């Protein structure tokens, strides 16, 4: 690993990262960047694909994840990957999702340079858009982060408070904010040969204090893990059909959660298929079974079926929850379900590209008690 730093001028963190990105683009080593940039209204920051350094006014700290960046990279590379390198700036959860999509043959990393950014957390889309504080969300967050205060905590999406891992793994380059006084220096690490090669000729300075980064990374990981464990303990409560039915009561079966999920990539989702269209008499027959039949139908079937299809690859990005128009706190069931299922198969989504997705492989000598008895 090579460690360098970006010298921050006049405490201008965002400006200095943009200077770095402009140098990166001008170096010719990457032909374009996918990087979050605020829309003119400043109500949202979307990833933009950008090749002209003059047009670049990115905001990589903007605490918002409007949609899955992994799904965007999938869209851009699945048909044909780029001929020359493109840098994609991503948060850790989205890198994990991208790795899963690569395993599922839904994305291609050829000529994709992953630039991971330490993530302190993101706000729900509408909190970002209608931010109640005087400062912009980015400045408010940066200030809280520097002071190590928990002022921003109340604005974070709940899933971010207990992020599975806020530090990117599987990135070629990491921009590090933990373990450095980032109003002075931002850490730049190369984690692959591609990353090293790209950083080689950029005007960056060498990092001296690698130790403080290591310690800070461990601390933040421990803190989030602890919060996640606490949450898992609390959410033991949603058990049994009474509780489960009540939990999903507000679900209108709109499938927005699935649409937002990076892992649910199917071109035609089973739950949108004609399996659910039927003659009136079949609906009547189903009504007769229980005496009455709720519509829109099969909402819980969708939830549990979707869970069975994708939970092993769930990266806990919380985009499903953010997309729900009825504010169902989906992570309260998805995190426990992901935790238990992934443990059962000793599977770690997003960790290792060579690890096979559990449902496409098997061993003859496993789970022998299932099917016998």
């Amino acid at each position, binding site marked *: 690993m090579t460690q360098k730093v970006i010298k921050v001028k006049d405490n201008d963190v965002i400006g200095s990262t943009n200077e770095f990105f402009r140098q990166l683009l001008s170096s010719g080593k990457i032909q374009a960047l996918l990087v979050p940039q605020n829309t003119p209204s400043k109500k949202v920051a979307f990833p933009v694909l950008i090749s002209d350094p003059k047009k670049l006014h990115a905001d990589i700290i903007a605490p918002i994840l409007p949609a899955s960046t992994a799904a965007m990279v999938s869209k851009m590379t699945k048909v044909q990957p780029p001929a020359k390198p493109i840098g994609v700036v991503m948060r850790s959860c989205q890198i994990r999702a991208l790795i899963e999509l690569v395993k599922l043959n839904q994305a291609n990393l050829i000529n994709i340079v992953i630039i991971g950014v330490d993530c302190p957390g993101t706000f729900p889309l509408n909190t970002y858009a209608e931010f109640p504080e005087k400062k912009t969300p980015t400045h408010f967050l940066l200030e809280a982060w520097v002071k190590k205060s928990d002022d921003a905590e109340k604005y974070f999406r709940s899933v971010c408070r207990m992020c599975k891992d806020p530090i990117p793994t599987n990135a070629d380059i990491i921009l590090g904010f933990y373990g450095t006084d980032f109003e002075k220096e931002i850490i730049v690490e190369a984690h692959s040969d591609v990353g090293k090669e790209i950083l080689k000729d950029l005007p960056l300075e060498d990092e001296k204090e690698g130790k403080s980064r290591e310690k800070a990374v461990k601390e933040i990981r421990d803190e989030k893990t602890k919060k996640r464990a606490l949450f898992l303990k609390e959410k033991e409560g949603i058990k*049994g059909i009474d509780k*489960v039915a009540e939990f999903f009561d507000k679900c209108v079966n709109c499938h927005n959660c699935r649409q937002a999920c990076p892992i649910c990539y199917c071109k035609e989702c089973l739950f949108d298929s004609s399996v659910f269209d039927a003659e009136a008499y079949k609906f009547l027959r189903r009504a007769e079974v229980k005496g009455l039949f709720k519509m829109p139908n099969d909402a819980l079937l969708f939830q549990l*079926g979707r*869970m*069975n299809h994708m939970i092993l690859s769930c990266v806990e990005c919380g985009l499903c929850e953010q997309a729900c128009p009825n504010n169902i706190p989906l992570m309260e069931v998805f995190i426990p379900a992901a935790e238990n299922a992934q443990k059962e198969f000793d599977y770690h989504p997003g960790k290792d590209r060579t690890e096979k997705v559990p449902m496409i492989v*098997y061993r003859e000598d*496993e789970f022998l008690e*299932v*099917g016998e008895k």
Partner: protein
Amino acid sequence: MSEEKKDHKKEDFEPRIVGFLCNWCSYAGADLAGTSRIQYPPNVRIIRVMCSGSVDSMYILRALLEGADGVFVGGCHPGDCHYIDGNYKARRRMVLLENILGTLGLEKERVWLRWISASEGQKFADTMKEMTESIRKLGPSPIAKHWNL
């Protein structure tokens, strides 16, 4: 409440079981049980599938949510699947389904996977007896009285 109690009395309760049987083994096994006149409880409604590996969890879940008291999946013995590894994949899928049902406290004991070959008519009948009795002990599925799913 009293009416519900009456509906759900255990003694005179006949479990409704949905059985997905692989065409090449368990379905033929059920057939053999029939032609050999081996007695087994009539509680199982059989659906023939081409392979245990073709049973998406969605179909098992749908039976459960519609109020089935139990769901049975019958496949070829390990190593004998007509499509080479459908049953190994069915086994993994079953492990996952049971895990998720467990997380949500949804009585995974109501879902069974068993290997039964075309020549095992007796085993099919025995398994059906065993499952019917086991589900009878569990009582009616609490999901059956929920219409708001």
